[in-house]
């Protein structure tokens, strides 16, 4: 993550309508938005839509970001709200299939070309939403615990604990899926 001072400078430029600052903020924070959305909605396509919409809304309302140096926290709150709205819409639209998307399935995910991605998504359903956010932001965005704690409004110790617990559960689930696959292949 870029440092808070640089972020604040970009936010101030973006407030003046500087599109280069928009681009720099998007380059720095769009993926984090996507990962936060994915932690909540659990579907790649929905996460992409939510992240894009939330980012556009954030840039549109950037004048209301009162603490530019804490832009990440402000942005991710917008992402979270829109992701929850997305879940609500999905529940209304997609009642029969809802159970299989928000609850972990008892069966291992199917093997195939998207095997690893499907496995990871399925395994992530076995940890809490905040743990998913921490594990994704730490694992893919490579944010430090300090940065995660600041962005999610939790303590550094809690961030570490979430990561530790999430990794333990995820490893267990991924190992189960692998064993299940081996058993399936032997049949």
């Amino acid at each position: 993550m870029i440092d808070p001072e640089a972020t604040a400078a970009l936010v101030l430029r973006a407030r003046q309508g500087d599109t280069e600052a928009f681009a720099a903020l998007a380059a720095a924070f769009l993926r984090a938005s996507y990962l936060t959305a994915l932690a909540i909605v659990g579907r790649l396509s929905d996460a992409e839509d939510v992240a894009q919409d939330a980012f556009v809304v954030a840039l549109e309302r950037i004048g209301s970001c009162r603490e530019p140096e804490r832009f990440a926290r402000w942005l991710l709150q917008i992402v979270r709200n829109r992701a929850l709205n997305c879940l609500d819409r999905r529940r209304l639209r997609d009642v029969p299939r809802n159970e299989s998307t928000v609850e972990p399935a008892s069966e291992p995910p199917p093997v195939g070309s998207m095997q690893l991605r499907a496995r990871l998504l399925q395994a992530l359903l076995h940890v809490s939403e905040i743990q998913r956010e921490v594990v994704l932001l730490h694992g893919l965005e490579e944010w430090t615990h300090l940065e995660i704690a600041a962005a999610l409004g939790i303590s550094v110790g809690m961030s570490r604990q979430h990561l530790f617990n999430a990794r333990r559960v995820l490893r267990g689930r991924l190992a189960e899926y692998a064993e299940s696959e081996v058993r399936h292949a032997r049949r």
Partner: protein
Amino acid sequence: MRDDDKLDLRALDPSRDRERWRQLTESVVQRAAARLRPVPSIPSQMVAWRMPVLAVAAALALMTWTAIAWSETDAGPEAEPMYLLSQWAARDELPASTPQILEAFRGHHDRP
């Protein structure tokens, strides 16, 4: 509490397809920029349009002045009674009849 054995989450990384991610990022920036393009205020629009408005006003004034000047000269001096009288006098003529004189002066007196 240490857990340094990182999980490989790269399969979930949206930026693995760099070109697609670049397009997505650009699309977000363009959408935001389009929404934030400022709507000009009425005073600023007036300032922006002042030169064309002045040019149109000047053209209209010129056209009006030309039209008035043209209409004033359109009748010509031949229509003026004094001109007619002076012509008659110069040619040592007399008007053919009283009605001819009255006709020449009527138009002059009818004017407001």
